[in-house]
């Protein structure tokens, strides 16, 4: 019971830390990491749900299946977020350098 509680509270703590970072940090990469930390927190709580002491009966397989599915979802969403963040970075850099060039040559007004 203690172990279960410890892991669950740890998961909840991770979720809250991730939530704080998601709101407080402005860098896109940090935001993506924050979402991943939150997801890990939720998975940890799920795993703790399935915890049973040795010899206390069969382990419930449903939370494990849910965590596996959740990890797959989280990996693919992270990939999409990374691509999108890279794209945003590229276009904003490009428009920035374009702007500088225009300022330099006096064009673009």
């Amino acid at each position, binding site marked *: 019971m203690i172990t279960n509680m410890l892991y669950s509270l740890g998961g909840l703590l991770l*979720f809250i830390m991730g*939530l704080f970072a*998601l709101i407080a940090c402005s860098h*896109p990469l940090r*935001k993506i990491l924050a*979402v991943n930390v*939150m*997801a890990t927190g*939720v998975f940890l*709580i*799920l795993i703790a*749900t399935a915890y049973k002491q040795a010899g206390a009966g069969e382990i*419930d397989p*449903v*939370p494990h299946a*849910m965590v596996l*599915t*959740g990890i797959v*979802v989280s990996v*693919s*969403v992270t990939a*999409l*977020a990374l691509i*999108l*963040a890279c*794209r*945003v970075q590229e*276009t*904003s850099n490009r*428009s920035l350098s374009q702007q500088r060039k225009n300022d330099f040559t006096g064009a673009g007004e």
Partner: protein
Amino acid sequence: MISFDDPSWIVIPIILPLAAGLLCFLTRRWAFAFSLAASLGNLLASGILLKQLLSVGPLSYNVGNWKAPLGIALRIDGPAILMLLMTAVTGLGITLYARGYFSFRISGQKKIGRHERQERFFWPLWMTLWASLNGLFLSADLFNLYVTLELISIPAVALAALSGKPASQIAAFRYLLVSLLGSLSYLLGVVFIYRTYGVLDLALLGSKTASGAGIGAALALMSVGLLLKTALFPMHFWLPPAHANALAPVSAILSALVVKASFYLLFRLWFDVFASTITEPALNLLGTLGGVAIVWGALQAIRQQRLKLLVAYSTVSQLGYLFIAFPLAYLEKGADIWAAVIFMALAHSCAKSAMFMAAGTIFLHAGHDRINDLAGVRSYLPVTVFAYAIAGVNIMGLPPSGGFIAKWLLISSSLNSSQWWWGLIVMAGSLLASVYVFRVVSRFFVIPEGYHVPDRQPHSPLLEWPALVLALVALLLGLIAPYPLHILETGSSLFAMVSQKGLLL
């Protein structure tokens, strides 16, 4: 060939768009043909499911014949079939419009080939999005619903970024983060539920209702997550940039269908599964937020200078009406309220997609969507302007539109349950809506002096007519009002119960 009575028809609305989406990835040339076939097949399958529902009542189906605790159950009842039909009709319209949109050739050296590139990715993404939407409406399992929520947000975000403009990419990134936060909050709620009850099936959960701190926290987490995705005030901040900067068919999809999916799930959870744990303050809170959303969204829409942003803020405002119904459902006999919510969702879905389509057509021809410079559009796009005006009639809620029926039901039940202030907000919202609709429509019709009618660029009829047809469907929804009500009553046992006794707990 399976017979028409076979319950396995329920998987067709999920499999068909998914298969079409995969085929679109493989062969680009036939992408539109596959998508159109899937849209028509989906409409047919929804019709057959409706027929089954009316003859034998709610259906459920275990995928792969695995039973409830382990397997994934699909089920269909009144609200689900109405959402499915709404998606089928609006989706067919959007599919046709998208064809017209992408076959429009923009002149200008840098822009040549842009539509071909966008179209290549549009069809597979749209079809997978459609499959996940149908999956959400048909799922009967909390965790499966989480998966469909994520499956919806992935193609929705990719579609929002499709236009390639920096503004749309930034908006899409923010949209992705918000919807991830929403999904994770929902998932944490699901975990709490599983810890308490040990089941995820909606029907099993409904029979095990008990209140407690754990359930309250779980419901709060799930609701906040879904409200974020539904963009209820003050969590609407991501919606206008994401919807306004996307391509026109994508804006129509996002505004008409995607926000409805998370709302539908929220609605089901509150009034179906956890009806006994809902308290009055919680309902009043949602109603208040909905009321603020109506006024705030409408005021913002009036202030906008760009047409697509105006239409996007109008979505924020219209979503508020869906939440006004929550506190009314608590005291009043439930039937009217359920009908009001469903009517609002159906009418808004058709009207708003028509509005975004019309705005997109105008954008393509004029090359911009600054409202002040759009005078005289009716001289070269009469059908589109007509469609916009008809959709506007719906948004304002004039008879005989579906929007009128919904608002009428809301106002009358607010008076019957002596909560007149909700009715007042509904009326104020309609007044404000007429301001932002007429502001644009009057501009369309004014032809300034010395106005030179631009050469009409050739375009496919698909660019104009789907919007008009959808707007007319929304307008005529009021005339067939008893029929959807009949479907609701036969479909949901809970609805029948609520309509007799109200939600007095």
